[in-house]
């Protein structure tokens, strides 16, 4: 085959340059393979930089009692047992080594008094477990991995947007087709294996902590290419996003504020979280403010305060307080660290939060409470993968990081994402390398798929009286926020499924003004098909899961149902079109070995 466009040939192609993609590249490169990374943005700007609080790893530097078994237990319970147990096990066992390895590559974590890596408390983790650098841990992670990747001489294609994966004749992955954002010119890549590391989907909601990049490209491309998506209904609404001014609504406020002593209050000044402790967490949660306050200094002197319950619990509680009329002036609640810690402590431990509120909201968090509310933050669902290799059901296609599903079950614990990126990013690199060294690889490169993707991408230039992509995006965000948001109900979900059909038609009828060179309107037009596909899967999963579990809350089915706890909802697509028919089926969870199941019973 001869591609009619600029063409490149690699062994391993990695789509996405966040933590997972970069870590995968390091691993594949160390195996002597020809590796390229493709990213929509510049190198080092991926959403990983937004991670604040830290990366969870049971290193036992602050509490010796900590070990992988406790981390495994916390992850499974936080995920409401919907997790792929094997991923949770590998993650808990391997994350300490992955953190230490970062120091060999230049990371500088905050230290304990005896010179080890300091670890901080976060929701749902029994012990102080998050390795961190103030409240900018994600930046440290991405910069460290970026500098390592660059020092290894890896090829990085920046501001290059992948449109579609390309198969060979047998249906194995053979590469992808993309375009350069600066010039608008198309480019094709042949590869023996492709690793998706494209992050999340949050841009389909109105209030989100996610950047413009989080449009679910990898989720959608995997589904179009024949892989399965699972748990797409499980979306994490982070309890603490900024709510005012409107222009920053949704912007993340780190859980580290609560880990370091901050508490949530309603308009009556009450620490309302004590009223929202679910039975599952009662035995490990403080009963009084005094007990919770003692815990900060010594975890054996009291139990954890309810502000540090898993994120889904806290987000629902905030939502309920606002609904009950006890919210803050701008529709959130108050997060107060000013009355609990000294200004010096706050500025040292939470420097970015201090500046973020000072500069964007005019609020001094060392003197005043912050107004916060839930914001769409993370999707637990994604591409169904094998725990050991991150392989999908499509030969040659791998996935790691937020785009992959399984590790976090129905709800992710804070701090488990950065460790996910390095544990499974490395495994994706290994999985792809093993696949190639085993002699597997594509035969051919389906140019028809390339031509179809190019034709679809250029269609909005030929349509003169279609819609502005920005109008469609805004309406989609409002519709998803209103109907498939933090609290859901059957009739609204069904409305969303219907509406998404109409949105697909609107996406088929877009118009783009201007040329192809660095045209954000056109870029958005090429993102919208992915946004529609992932939103459809989320709505379909939400309709089928008639229970409440983790990041999926149904007003009409407010309790968890044990039967639903045994299954994931798996989506597949027959014809590869973003608006094609999606089949949603139950798929049984892996059954857990008895010795691991035993761990979950301990200390209940």
């Amino acid at each position, binding site marked *: 085959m001869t591609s009619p466009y600029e063409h490149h040939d690699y062994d391993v192609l990695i789509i996405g340059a966040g933590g997972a993609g970069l870590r995968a590249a390091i691993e594949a490169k160390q195996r002597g393979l020809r590796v390229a990374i493709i990213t929509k*943005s*510049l190198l*080092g*700007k*991926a*959403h990983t*930089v*937004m991670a604040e609080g830290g990366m969870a790893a049971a290193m036992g530097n602050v509490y010796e009692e900590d070990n992988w078994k406790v981390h495994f237990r916390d992850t499974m319970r936080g995920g409401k047992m919907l997790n792929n147990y094997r991923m949770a096990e590998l993650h808990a066992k391997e994350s300490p080594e992955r953190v*230490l390895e970062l*120091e*060999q590559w*230049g990371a*500088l*974590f*905050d*230290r304990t008094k*005896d*010179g*080890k*890596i300091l670890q901080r408390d976060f929701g749902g983790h029994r012990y102080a477990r998050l390795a961190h*650098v103030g409240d*900018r841990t*994600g*930046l440290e992670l991405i*910069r460290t991995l970026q*500098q*390592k990747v*660059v*020092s290894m001489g890896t090829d990085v294609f*920046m501001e290059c947007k992948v449109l579609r994966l390309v198969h060979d004749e047998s249906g194995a992955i053979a590469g992808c087709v993309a375009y350069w954002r*600066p010039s608008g010119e198309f480019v094709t890549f042949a590869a023996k294996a492709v690793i998706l590391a494209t992050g999340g989907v949050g841009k389909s909601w109105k209030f989100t902590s996610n*950047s*413009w*990049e989080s449009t679910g490209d990898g989720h959608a491309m995997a589904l179009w290419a024949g892989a399965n998506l699972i748990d797409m209904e499980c979306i994490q609404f982070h309890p603490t996003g900024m709510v*005012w*001014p*409107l*222009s*920053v609504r949704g*912007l993340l406020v780190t859980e580290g504020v609560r880990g370091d002593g901050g508490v949530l209050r309603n308009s009556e000044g009450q620490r309302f979280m004590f009223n929202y402790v679910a039975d599952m967490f009662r035995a490990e949660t403080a009963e009084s403010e005094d007990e919770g306050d003692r815990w900060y200094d010594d975890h054996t002197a009291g139990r954890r305060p309810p502000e540090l319950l898993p994120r889904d619990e806290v987000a629902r509680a905030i939502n309920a307080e606002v609904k009950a009329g006890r919210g803050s002036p701008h529709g959130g609640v108050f997060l107060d660290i000013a009355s609990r810690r000294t200004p010096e402590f706050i500025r040292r431990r939470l420097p*970015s939060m201090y*500046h*973020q509120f000072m*500069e*964007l*909201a*005019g609020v001094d968090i060392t003197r005043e409470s912050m107004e916060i509310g839930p914001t769409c933050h993370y999707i637990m669902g994604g591409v169904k993968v094998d725990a050991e290799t991150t392989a999908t059901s499509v030969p040659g296609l791998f996935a790691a990081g937020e785009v992959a599903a399984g590790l976090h079950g129905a709800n992710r614990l804070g701090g488990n994402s950065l460790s996910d990126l390095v544990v499974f990013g490395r495994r994706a690199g290994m999985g792809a390398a093993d696949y190639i060294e085993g002699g597997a690889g594509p035969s051919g490169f389906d140019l028809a798929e390339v031509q179809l993707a190019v034709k679809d991408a250029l269609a909005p230039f030929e349509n003169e009286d279609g819609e*502005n*992509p*920005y109008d469609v995006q805004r309406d989609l965000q409002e519709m998803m926020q209103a109907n498939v948001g933090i609290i859901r109900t059957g009739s609204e979900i069904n409305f969303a499924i219907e509406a998404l059909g109409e949105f697909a038609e609107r996406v088929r009828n877009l118009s*783009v*003004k*201007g040329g192809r*060179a*660095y*045209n*954000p*309107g*056109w870029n*958005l037009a090429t993102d919208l098909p992915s946004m529609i596909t992932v939103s459809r899967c989320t709505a379909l999963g939400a309709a089928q899961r008639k229970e409440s579990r983790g990041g999926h809350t149904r007003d009409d089915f407010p309790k968890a149902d044990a039967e639903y706890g045994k299954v994931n909802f798996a989506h597949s697509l027959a014809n590869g079109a973003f608006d094609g028919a999606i089949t949603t089926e139950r798929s049984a969870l892996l059954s857990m070995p008895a010795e691991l199941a035993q761990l979950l019973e301990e200390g209940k």
Partner: protein
Amino acid sequence: MANVTMRVWRGDASGGDFESYTLEQNEGEVVLDVIHRIQATDAPDLACRWNCKAGKCGSCSAEINGKPSLMCMTRVDELPEGPITVTPMRTFPIIRDLVTDVSFNFAMAAKVPALLPPPMPEGGYRMFQEDVARGQEFRKCIECFLCQDVCHVIRDHEDNKAHYAGPRFFIRYAELEMHPLDTNDRRDLIREEMGLGYCNITKCCTEVCPEHIKITDNAIIPLKERVVDAHYDPIAWLGRKIRRREKKSATDAAVQPAP
């Protein structure tokens, strides 16, 4: 609220001009919000970079009323009344509108010799907070390249780009030089190929740094002392050697396995 008028430079490498947009002003908005509203309505093809919209990724660098700034951290209500002028960073070649070709910086990044630590002992390295704190200040850098943009060594002299790394990379070199585990010696490289001597410490870089890194005082001046003195002054060179040895022994102590 009142209206806001924004004069945005539109064009490409072949030339361009200012275009004015007048919109209603919303409470608490930053410059990037207004740019986004222009994109969503009048000019969907207005090119700008952005990602996090929270001052953490360093993508939305531009010159606002002539001052190198992050568009996401510049509040409209804190700018002087009257039209706001937004132009691309002047030091880098234009791609389109507010987007510039910043590949110079990535080329410089590729030339940095990596950290070279001793083998990691079991249980990890031991380092102390006071020893990592200096490097941590420089690692706050979000690579917005505003310091590169404002630095007159390359802003006014295009040909200097061939042999001048710029403030962003001087803090990178300073970070590595001060890293408690590092054993690599980059001093000749910094002096001979990275052009540290061209910097005449006018502190413009420090002034525009959105992370408030004291680039000149904490990175460039100490780096000049290490590099230049070590080269020209035999006593400083000797002192450097001795301090180097101290650092080395401190490194040895830091890598003892945990008891």
